[in-house]
């Protein structure tokens, strides 16, 4: 329904671009897992309606079948993006479901192939301002937000601080070097902060470290704000994230716009336009927080479902 409305919003634009004919779009999936398939389904549903031809490819099979004849390629996930980048060709590429840090650090450069290919991305990450807003809405009392980062992610600190500042939140952070134990820096951060903001950083937070990180936070009675529905299930009090469908909808809109233009042009890389909030009521109860319902939070954050 939402997709439909989005298409309606684009309709005047499409009409004006009557010269545009049916084009071929390749959607490259990192693998056949459900989130990637969902992204593809949403894109195809939107583009089929506008008469475009959507072809599904898998990263692993890509070298055999070049997407060269496609007018536009959508790389879903880092694996797909890497595979597309390895292919020669001039087809513009839109990378979705990729971490912002990766894209900015390596992905963009590799995809652009020294500017010979037009690239853009819809990040997996949520903007820090949005996260700060969520913290503010969920924990009105919070003053200081703790962040744990690996040394490689040091560059994010300014962005985080800037985001938090919009909601008058202070930042406490610790950098975790690769060979150091997580416990001590985590405790330092938790001691100072009221809320622990989890940042997608595999060096710090991964399947192995998640439990102790969550447990330690629990012991400090600090809520953890995560970045995925999985993290909410694992023990974060709440998370801010975009679903594959939301990403897919945004991507489909972008592709559609680009194909309808005389020349294929992609917008600049951006954070997901649509997002969701997930709350772990059990954790909230354990920690003694009263958090507004997910829907209310999304609405108050201006999110659109």
């Amino acid at each position, binding site marked *: 329904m939402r997709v439909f409305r989005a298409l309606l919003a684009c309709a005047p634009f499409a009409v004006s671009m009557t010269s545009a004919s049916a084009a071929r779009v390749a959607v490259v999936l990192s693998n056949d897992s459900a989130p990637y398939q969902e992204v593809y389904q949403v894109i195809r549903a939107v583009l089929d309606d506008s008469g475009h031809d959507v072809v599904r490819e898998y990263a692993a099979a890509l070298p055999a079948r070049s997407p060269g004849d496609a007018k536009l390629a959508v790389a879903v*996930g880092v694996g797909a993006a890497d595979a597309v980048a390895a292919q020669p060709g001039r087809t513009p590429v839109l990378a979705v479901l990729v971490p912002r840090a990766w894209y900015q650090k390596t992905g963009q450069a590799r995809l652009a192939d020294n500017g010979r290919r037009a690239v853009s991305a819809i990040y997996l990450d949520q903007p820090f301002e949005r996260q700060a807003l969520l913290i503010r809405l969920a924990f009105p009392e919070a003053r200081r937000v703790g962040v744990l980062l690996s040394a490689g992610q040091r560059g994010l600190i300014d962005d985080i601080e800037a985001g938090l500042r919009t909601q008058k939140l202070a930042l406490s952070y610790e950098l975790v070097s690769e060979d150091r134990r997580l416990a001590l820096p985590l405790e330092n951060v938790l001691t100072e902060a009221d809320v622990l903001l989890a940042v997608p950083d595999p060096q710090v937070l991964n399947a192995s470290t998640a439990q102790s990180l969550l447990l330690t936070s629990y012991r400090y009675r600090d809520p953890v704000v995560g970045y995925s529905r999985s993290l909410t299930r694992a023990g974060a009090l709440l998370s801010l994230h975009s679903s594959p469908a939301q990403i897919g909808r945004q991507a489909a809109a972008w592709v559609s716009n680009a194909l309808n233009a005389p020349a294929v042009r992609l917008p600049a890389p951006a954070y997901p336009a649509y997002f969701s909030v997930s709350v772990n009521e059990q954790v909230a109860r354990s920690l003694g927080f009263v958090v507004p319902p997910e829907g209310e939070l999304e609405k108050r954050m201006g999110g659109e479902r």
Partner: protein
Amino acid sequence: MAYSLGIRGRVIGLAVVPVAIVGVLLLFQLIAGKIQDLDQSLRTRAVSIARQLAPAVEYGVASGNIDVLQNLLEKAAIEPDIRGAAVFADNGEWLAQVGMGAWRNPLRDGMPVDRIHEVEFADRLVYYAPITRTEVVVDDFQAVESGSAVPDRRTRLLGWVGLDVSRDATIRSQRKAILRSLGILFAGLALSLYLAWRIGRQITRPILALTHTVSRIGEGHLDARVAQTGRAELGMLQRGINHMAAHLQTAQDQMQAKIDQATARLVYQASHDALTGLINRREFEQRLERLLQSAIQHDRSHALCYMDLDQFKVINDSCGHAAGDELLRQLALLLKSNLRERDTLARLGGDEFALLLENCGLDDAVQVADLFRAEVQRFRFKWGDRIFAVGMSVGMVAITRDSGTAANLLSAADAACYVAKDRGRNQIHVYESRDLDLVRHRGEMQWVARIQRAIEEHRLRLSWQAIRRTDGSVERTRHVELLLRMVDEDGSEILPMAFIPAAERYYVMPALDQWVIEETLRLCQRCAALPGGTGHLFGLNLSGASLKDPAFRDMLLARLEANPALGPNLCFEITETAAIGNLSVVNAFIEALRGFGCSFALDDFGSGLSSFNYLKNLRVDYLKIDGAFVRDIVVNPVDRAMVEAVHRIGHLLGLKTVAEYVEDDRTLALLRQIGVDYVQGNGVHAPQSLDGLCEAETPV
């Protein structure tokens, strides 16, 4: 008690040994199983605790929160058998510990990181369980992770949980289980033992009673019986033993009766003579001893008679032993019928009887003995178609306090009997210590030595007596009888009747006869050597003992073979008693000697058996009529008739008759009238020494 151990012990063994074996095996199996179960359960429990503790401490290790660890370990250590617990970091460093335990550095000792490691000690078990991170999905999209390194096993390891488990309780309960099982086993064994003992007693008690009874029966108490208690096999056994004992008792009673009978018979046989039923010598001697004692102690007078049958030997030899036995039986009956109540008649052996007359003076005794003797004399013994008269010689001795020993008495009676025999048989002779005949008899034993000495010292001599024709005519060949004389050590001459009986009795006759033959042969040779000497026919006596002696016969034949020419000069005079009993042998011998030209005369015919039957069977040339008939022929017509009868029969058989003991001319005349061929005697020619025999030309 050795016998009771036998069955009872075996029953007990039978009952207890299988129980013991099964019990021990079960016990062993149970204890082994129990111990294994206990140990296994301890291990399982320890591993389970370690497995649960390891994830529980994950957070504490990851967060370095020692308090949390301490808290968890304390809770774990509450579990029974846990001695201590400890947590180690992934670098092997010790983080927290509760309770006891000597811990090792798990990293340095290379404890496994993917499983629980067990270190076993005798009294405890130590477990090291690795602590690994629990993985939690944090990303919705794998894309996020694709860029990061997949954490390896090593990075997932957080450390180790150590758990020290005591085995004391296990060992204690093992020990308890063993003790309890042993207790049950021994209780069971004791119960089995008791039951077996009870059952064994039930079995053995009747058996013991049986064995007791059997051994009593074995000891000879045949009236012993066993109580009837059972119905089964034991009952049958008890009945059987009672039956057997009853049978044994009956059999023994019967046997005892038979033994008594047999003993009585043996006693009778031991004291009686089987043939006549009279008491035997042994019993007689005992009675004699008793009488002798009574004579000595009470001054009583008794009499002992020794009785010997005359002619018994002749009957025995001529008609066989059966006849002799029958004679003895009949005589024993005859004598017994004349016995006074208190007198004892015994057969001492052969034809010898003895009579004990109790409280009987000698005079009375002589009367009794004479009665016996007369009875015997009247008695005629019939055997087949022949009738024999029997005589009895009796020797008597008084049994008084001066009689000496029983042996003395028997010897005296025997001697007296001999005297009676010697005096012509069928007489009674009473022993008197100064008896001349007895002196002679007593000297018999000395005679044997004297005869032997006389032979060795050449003090035997021959004399000769002519045998002439009754009608006075002279024959060419001179017929003489050679007579044996012995010269005593003092030079006096001893007649043969003095020493011949002793020689006959003590078996020296063959030696004497041999001497006579050798002397005669020498005489023959001497006479034959004389030129123009007349021929001689030498009559010489051969005793029965010599005739029966094979060595003597061989000797005589050998001598004749050496000098065959001398045979016709010899005429052997034998008595009919000597020939009887060996008739075939004697006849063969006679024939052999006849082959050398020897002739034969039957001597003393009429005095002994006088069986004309023998005359037919014995091949003799001369018949010499016994002098007893000839002596009184003039005054006794019976004797004359006897001589006539013998002469007539001799002539009928072709024999020449010779009359001995011709003492005077009247006898000679009568003999001549009868027709007897030859005469011999002092009235015809008195014996004279050999000197000049060969030279003597003419008869006197």
